[in-house]
């Protein structure tokens, strides 16, 4: 099924020996001119690209303390070398975080430091050449910006920041990545990554309303562009059509229905994900974030709630207020923005939702902490809420929950292998190999606890796992949305399920 070797799943994880150059061929398609211009980037590699690249690097060093400190502080201690899922899955030494950083750092040293200018060989400095640029393109598109390395670095060096800077430099010289840049263009024109226009959205949502009514006998609405609602729901566009995402969307709708709040989706802000972060572009990230602000203003909502989406939640939780705030026109009693898991969790705490956990008894569930939720954001007003709250929601809806190995959950979680703008078919080998550490941990709980399903709260995780887990012998439907579990177990007032349960107890 694959034209490359799928890594094996071991009983105990091992750190592989180096195999140089195994992933040197891996690179995504370069963006054509028409995908570059809408983002403000040159159409193709500019003639004086070296000069432009070094200037851009200088500019970024002056704008981002993270980049300046991270490029200086590394001592090559090796703490990060066995932490990246792409290294563990590919054995390519350039996928060790420090080695990936060195690709940029060696050029930084050469042009910006005393030692690199006068003793380049001694400190590992190198000129910016075409080969170096190609290597950047290859290996900075083998980083999913998951931040696992930053947890283990004694100075907190975050390779995501380095990758973002490298991608921004490459965009500036005209060597952008097709997948990300095409998608950002779609958001500007249509409003979402998948390019679903308003009529298609409307049609889909009506279909979902019918499905829910068929299942429960209750008219649960999924409104679009309705003014004067209390809540604007911003969710990844995959929620509108892909499995298992769409089951999650139905879950959100049922929760809102039971809570008795008015809510709406927006066709303008029909995308939670913000690919501006992947390419490290503050300007594009801000432009995408501003669509949410505009939609909230136009619709006159009081609150913003985000659906299940990992990187989106990082941008929403950590950046939205800075990029597109102040949100003084929203109700300050609620977090701005709020995660759907926080919303559901609060209702559970207040005993406002009724669950029939037995509805999920065909599943034994584990939870995959999505990297950008785990290490890039928070939930609730508590340290580690992003680990506690989704699990509490799952446990409220399921009888059988088992966590995976300690070293693979919470802030040690592994990326799914498709994050950070790598969820594209031209990187299939990388995606499959990068999923090995997660698949291995999943295999353990399958064998030890009979786990049947893995729940996630990220559109990229869900899409990636449905596609790559079959390479490891799992089936695509083993990945579920957290709010799919909620949707299965929630007992709506006046529903057929409520009547059935009443019948059983009589």
């Amino acid at each position, binding site marked *: 099924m694959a034209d490359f070797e799928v890594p094996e799943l071991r009983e105990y994880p091992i750190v592989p020996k180096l195999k140089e150059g195994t992933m040197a061929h891996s690179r995504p398609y370069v963006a054509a001119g028409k995908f570059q211009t809408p983002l403000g980037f040159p159409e193709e590699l500019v003639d004086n690209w070296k000069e432009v690249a070094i200037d851009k690097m200088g500019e970024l060093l002056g704008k981002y303390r993270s980049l300046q400190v991270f490029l200086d502080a590394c001592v090559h201690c090796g703490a990060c070398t066995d932490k990246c899922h792409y290294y563990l899955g590919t054995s390519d030494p350039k996928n060790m975080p420090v080695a990936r950083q060195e690709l940029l750092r060696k050029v930084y040293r050469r042009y910006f430091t005393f030692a690199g200018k006068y003793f380049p060989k001694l400190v590992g400095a190198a000129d910016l050449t075409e080969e170096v640029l190609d290597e950047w393109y290859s290996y900075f598109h083998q980083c999913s910006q998951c931040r696992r390395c930053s947890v283990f670095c004694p100075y907190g060096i975050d390779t995501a920041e380095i990758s973002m800077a490298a991608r921004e430099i490459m965009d500036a010289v005209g060597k952008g990545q097709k997948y990300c840049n095409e998608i950002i263009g779609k958001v500007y024109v249509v409003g979402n990554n998948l390019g679903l226009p308003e009529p298609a959205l409307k049609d889909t949502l009506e279909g979902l309303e019918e499905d829910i009514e068929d299942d429960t006998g209750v008219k649960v609405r999924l409104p679009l562009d309705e003014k004067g609602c209390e809540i604007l729901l911003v969710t990844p566009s995959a929620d509108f059509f892909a499995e298992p995402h769409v089951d999650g969307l139905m879950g959100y709708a049922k929760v809102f229905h039971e809570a008795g709040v008015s809510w709406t989706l927006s066709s303008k802000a029909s995308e939670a994900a913000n690919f501006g972060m992947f390419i490290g572009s503050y300007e594009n990230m801000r432009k995408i974030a501003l669509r949410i602000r505009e939609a909230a203003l136009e619709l006159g909502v009081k609150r913003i709630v985000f659906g299940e989406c990992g990187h989106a939640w990082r941008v929403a939780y950590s950046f939205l207020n800075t990029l597109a705030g102040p949100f003084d026109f929203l109700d300050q009693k609620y977090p701005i923005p709020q995660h759907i898991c926080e919303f559901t969790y609060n209702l559970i705490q207040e005993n406002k939702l009724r669950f029939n956990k037995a509805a999920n008894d065909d599943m034994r569930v584990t939870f995959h902490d999505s990297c950008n939720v785990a*290490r890039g954001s928070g939930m609730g007003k508590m340290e580690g809420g992003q680990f506690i709250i989704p699990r509490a929601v799952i446990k409220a809806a399921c009888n059988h929950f088992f966590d995976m190995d300690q070293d693979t959950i919470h*802030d040690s979680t592994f990326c799914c292998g498709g994050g950070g703008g790598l969820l594209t078919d031209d990187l299939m080998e990388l995606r499959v190999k990068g999923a090995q550490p997660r698949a291995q941990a999943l295999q353990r709980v399958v064998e030890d606890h009979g786990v049947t399903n893995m729940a996630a709260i990220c559109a990229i995780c869900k899409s990636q796992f449905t596609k790559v887990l079959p390479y490891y012998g799992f089936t695509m439907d083993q990945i579920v949305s957290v709010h799919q579990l909620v949707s299965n177990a929630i007992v709506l007032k006046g529903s057929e399920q409520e009547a059935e349960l009443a019948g059983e107890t009589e």
Partner: protein
Amino acid sequence: MSLVTTLYVGLFYLATILLVAGLALRIRKYAQTPAPLKIPTMPAPLTETGVAMRMAREVVFFESLFRSNKWTWIFGYLFHFGMLLVLLRHLRYFTEPVWFWVNWIQPFGKYAAFAMLAGLLGLWARRFLVDRVRYISTPSDHLMLALLVGIALSGLGMGYLVHTDIVAVKAFFLGLMRFSPQPLPADPLLLVHLGLVAILMIIFPISKLLHAPGVFFSPTRNQVDNPRERRHIAPWAEQMEASER
């Protein structure tokens, strides 16, 4: 004044100026470069006090390194805290009268030199024995370790093998500090020891030794988790916003 003394007087004044000025410039650069977005590695503390605690755990216990790799942690810890004690012990050559607590740590400081050396050798061994660490090691990584090992060995040599006139050494450094140079004993081990120390001081602000001030400026470690409550906008981002209006 002998040629040796003149040379070392000049060397130490130069090294001190380069170290202090170099570090000051670097720290100013870190402090003045904006951190435009909240990027703490989560979960992060919700308060300033919490962040101070996180940073203290990082600097005092090497918390992240402990989670990451026990061997590197042990060797790194032996080296850094061995060196700290050794440095504190050396304060006796720069103070008159010697501070009381410097006298207290004198016996520990002498053994700490062995801990420092053991840590350095352990870290160096990893650069040869672990294929991943071997791959990322540059010539300067090895030279840096050689330099530190040289300092430790020459220092231990004077303590246990070939004693130098330590009273004269102290007079030399007090003289430097009072701008009235005194003669330096021309013992080979002492000259090697001091020469290597001066080199270390000179390369500190232009090398990876910048990890020492750098860690305090690391945004993933020194930021509070409060982005939903407060905007965190950089001056250049504010300008960008203003130009749109």
